């Protein structure tokens, strides 16, 4: 599984689709995005099962949401925490982790695996 993370509107989906030569229907079949939203309202001990399930996809995309001031609202705080924990669990399970910023990839883990994937999507 390739885990793609990065700031909001950084071009994460566009980048990975182009890198893998995917069209919209490939993306719908093999990928899932905005997984930080799936972590909302889950308890910490529920996150590994979610990560396991997501890791069956070829591509998982999350938006970084943990870079701002700690939210005032307790539910927002919990959701932001869950999103960050989930991202760590996904990165553990991923063969490749890519951070996309300004549409540009930065490989945080397993570039070689990605290149194999690139040749044979």
């Amino acid at each position: 599984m390739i885990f793609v993370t990065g700031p909001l509107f950084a071009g994460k989906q566009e980048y990975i689709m182009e890198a893998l030569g995917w069209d919209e229907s490939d993306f719908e079949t093999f990928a899932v995005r905005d997984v930080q939203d799936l972590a909302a309202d889950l308890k910490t001990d529920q996150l590994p099962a979610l990560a396991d399930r997501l890791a069956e996809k070829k591509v998982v995309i999350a938006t970084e949401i943990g870079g701002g001031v700690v939210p005032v609202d307790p539910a927002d705080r919990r959701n932001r925490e869950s999103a960050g924990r989930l991202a760590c669990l996904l990165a553990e399970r991923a063969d490749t982790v890519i951070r996309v910023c300004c549409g540009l990839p930065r490989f945080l883990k397993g570039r070689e695996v990605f290149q194999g994937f690139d040749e044979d999507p």
Partner: protein
Amino acid sequence: MFTLVIGGSASGKSDYAERHVLSLKGDGPRIYIATMEPFGEEAQARIARHHAMRRDRGFETIECYRKAGTVRLPKGCNVLLEDLGNLAANELFGADFSLTDNGTNPCTDDICALLSERITADIDSLRSQCSHLTIVTNEVFSGGKEYEGETLTYLRLLAALNRKLAARADLVVEVVCGLPDVLKGPKTL
């Protein structure tokens, strides 16, 4: 050479960008394009101080808050534009159309598309006039998605500009704790 320097608030991106510009070869004049609109006496005093500081480092300062494409530059110059976040805000919020129709609608998309193309064309004009252009931009996209209306439009505009300019750039550097992380270009600086 076209360089995009991105970083969070107080990441050291300005200082890095300035050192980068000073390291670039060529004997053309150094120009600093300042995009922050001076509101009030305090801002004006700070801007005057920055002008003097940069003059000591060999920069001539040009103030430009909107329509950067209208700036005329001397031949062979080495330009530092700071920063894109201000320029985008001035263009968006000083623009002559209403953003009040409830945020996420086609109108917002149109505004982003229109303005990002216009501003990119302005930057292309600057690039065509100088030897080196370095632009400082802002990483303000990691603090969540719960934005609305004008703020969301602004984020989308700035993100679109960052992507477009990064695609054009020879060198894209993200500055973290004052240290450069090269996202595009030669890995050894």
